[in-house]
C-alpha cells in the first residue's frame, strides 16, 4: 500500500516540545532531501533503476509506449479516485479511496519516469504537457464516477481485478523497471481488489436500493470491459521480447474473479456489448471518450500556466 506512513514514521519529529521542530524548519528542509519525494522509492527498493538499459531486442519506442499505457491507466484513474476526497460516504472510505489513488499515483510516476527516460522529458512533462491524443490509457480509467459510490466500487472491482492479473504476469518482465513496479503493485492491487469486492458484496446484498444502484453501476461500466483485453501492436511485439503481457490472456482469470464476486453479491453479470472503436482505434491508440479532455484540462491547468517552472 502507500509508502508515506513509513516515511512519516521514519522522519517524524519526536520532540515532545514540538516548538523545536517548528524553529528548526529551515535547517532541516533541504531542497533535494529524498525524504520529501513520495512514491519514488519503489524502484530503488526493488534494485531497479529508471535508467536501466533497454532489454535486448526491444524497440525503445515500443517500451516507452508500453510504460505510458500502464502509467496512464494508473495516473488517470488515480485522478478520478482523487475526486472522492472530502466526498466519501464514511471516513474509512475517505482513507481507503485516497490510499488507492496514492498507490496508483506512485506506480504512474515510476512508469512515466521510465518512459521519459527513453523518449525525453520527465514524469511531469508527460503528465502535464501531453494532449488527450497522446494519452494511452483505457477508457475505463477515464470515466467519471459522478460521486456515485456504486460506480466507484464497480470500477475499482473491474480495474483492480484486471490490473492485478496484468501485474502478476509482469513480475517476470524482461524490463527491470516494469518488473519492479509489478512486484510492488501486486500487493497494492490485491488490497484494492479485496476492498472493492467487499463493498460489492455489501452493496449487492445490502438494501434494495443499494442492490439496484450496484447493478446499474455494473451495467454502465460493462461496455468498457472489452477494451481491457484488446492487444495493441506495441504489446504484441513486446510480448515476444518478454517485456509485456498479452492482455487477452488475462480474460479468463478476470472473468472468473468477476463472476465469483458478482454472483456472491446476488448481482447479475451484465450482458452489454463493448463500446465501439473508431477505425479499430481506442484508448491504447490515443482515441478516448469525451471524459478524458475534461479530466486533463483540470489536471494540467496550473502546470500549463507556468511553463518551465519547478514546484
Amino acid at each position, binding site marked *: 500500500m502507500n509508502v508515506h506512513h513509513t516515511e512519516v514514521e521514519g522522519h517524524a*519529529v519526536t520532540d515532545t516540545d514540538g516548538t523545536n521542530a517548528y524553529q528548526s524548519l529551515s535547517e532541516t528542509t533541504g531542497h533535494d532531501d529524498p525524504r520529501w519525494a513520495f512514491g519514488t522509492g519503489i524502484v530503488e527498493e526493488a534494485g531497479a533503476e529508471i535508467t536501466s538499459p533497454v532489454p535486448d531486442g526491444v524497440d525503445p519506442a515500443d517500451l516507452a509506449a508500453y510504460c505510458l499505457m500502464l502509467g496512464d491507466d494508473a495516473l488517470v484513474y488515480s485522478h478520478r479516485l482523487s475526486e472522492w*476526497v472530502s*466526498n466519501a460516504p464514511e471516513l474509512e472510505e475517505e482513507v481507503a479511496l485516497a490510499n488507492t489513488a496514492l498507490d496508483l499515483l506512485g506506480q504512474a510516476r515510476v512508469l512515466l519516469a521510465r518512459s521519459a527516460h527513453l523518449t525525453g522529458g520527465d514524469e511531469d512533462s508527460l503528465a502535464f504537457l501531453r494532449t488527450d491524443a497522446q494519452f494511452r490509457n483505457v477508457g475505463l480509467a477515464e470515466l467519471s464516477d459522478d460521486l456515485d459510490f456504486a460506480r466507484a466500487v464497480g470500477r475499482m472491482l473491474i480495474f483492480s481485478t484486471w490490473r492485478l492479473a496484468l501485474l502478476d504476469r509482469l513480475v517476470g518482465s524482461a524490463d527491470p523497471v516494469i518488473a519492479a513496479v509489478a512486484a510492488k503493485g501486486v500487493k497494492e492491487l490485491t488490497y484494492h481488489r479485496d476492498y472493492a469486492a467487499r463493498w460489492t458484496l455489501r452493496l449487492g446484498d*445490502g438494501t434494495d*436500493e443499494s442492490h439496484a444502484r450496484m447493478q446499474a453501476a455494473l451495467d454502465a461500466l460493462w461496455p468498457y470491459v472489452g477494451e481491457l483485453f484488446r492487444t495493441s501492436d506495441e504489446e504484441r511485439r513486446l510480448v515476444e521480447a518478454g517485456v509485456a503481457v498479452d492482455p487477452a490472456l488475462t480474460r479468463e482469470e478476470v472473468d472468473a474473479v468477476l463472476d465469483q464476486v458478482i454472483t456472491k453479491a446476488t448481482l447479475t453479470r451484465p450482458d452489454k456489448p463493448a463500446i465501439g472503436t473508431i477505425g479499430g482505434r481506442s484508448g491504447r491508440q490515443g482515441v478516448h471518450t469525451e471524459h478524458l479532455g475534461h479530466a486533463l484540462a483540470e489536471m494540467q491547468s496550473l502546470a500549463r500556466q*507556468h511553463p518551465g517552472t519547478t*514546484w
Partner: protein
Amino acid sequence: MTVTEDRTGPELDLEAGFDRTIGADQRVEPRDWMPEAYRKTLIRQIAQHAHSEIIGMQPEGNWILRAPSLRRKAILLAKVQDEAGHGMYLYAAAETLGVDREELTEKLISSKQKYSSIFNYPTLSYADIGVIGWLVDGAAICNQVPLCRCSYGPYARAMVRICKEESFHQRQGFELLLAMVNGTDAQKAMVQESVDRWWWPSLMMFGPPDDDSPNSAQSMAWGIKRHTNDELRQRFVDMSVPQAAALGVTLPDPELVWNEDRKSHDYGEPDWAEFKAVIAGSGPANAQRVAHRRRAHENGAWVREAAQAYADKQAARAREQEVPA
C-alpha cells in the same frame, strides 16, 4: 485516575478523587468518574477538533486535482488522507465520552458544533497549500502540542500521534514555499500574496484575547488547556518572524517589531470584528464548507444503510448456522 472503583460512594468523594488526579497532573481515563461539565467541555473541544480535520480536507482537497507536479500531488493527497485519519482518531476519542460519530456529524452539518474558523477561508492559489502547511499547521502545532499532556487520556494519546504527522505536514508546506520563492517571479508573488491573506487569520487561530476568553480559566484549571491564547499567539509570532525572513516574505503587519525589553515581538491587533463574523457564520466560505460536508454525508446515507443491512444479514446467517438442526 487510579482509585475510582468505589462508584457507589458519595459524589463528593468521587469529585475529590478527580481533583486529586488533576492536581497530581495524572490522566483521567474513560471509566473514571468525571464532573459533567468536564465531560461536556471535552466533548465540545474534541468534536470541534475532529470536525476541523474533516472540514480542513476541503480547502486543501481543492488543489489535489490541479497540483502542478506529480510529487506535489502525492504529498498533498497523502496529507489530506492523514487528515481523514486524524478525524477518525478524534471521533474515536470523543466516543469514549459517550457520543458517537454519527451524532457529532449531525451536529456539524446542522451548525450546532463548530470547527476551526481558519477553514472558512478559501484556497485561491497553490501557494496557499504551502502557507497552510507553514502558518496554519504551525499555529495548530502550537495549540496542539500542549494537548499531548491534556488531562484526558484518550485525547492526549490521539494528540501525540496527530502532532507527529502535523509536524511533518508543516515541514512539507514550508518546503513547498522554499521551492516557490526560489522559483519564478510569478511564484514569489504568489507566495507573498498568500501570506498576506493568511497571516491574520492564522493569528486568530489562537482564539480571542485573554481578557475576552471566558472559558479559558476553567479549561486551564482542569488541565485541558495549558497556556493562554495570548501566550500561544506570542510564541507563534516569535517563531514565524525568522521563518518569514528565511523565505524572504514580508508579514503584513506594520507594527511588527522586536521588543528588546520583552525579548519578544510586538505586533498589531488582529481584526477581531472579522474573527467574530467568521465564527458567527459569515466568513468567506462558511456556508460552502458546511453545505459540502452535508452533501457528502447525505449522499453517503444509502451506502451506510447498505453496509448495516449487509452486516445484519451476515449476523443473522451466522446465528442460523449456530442453531443445532
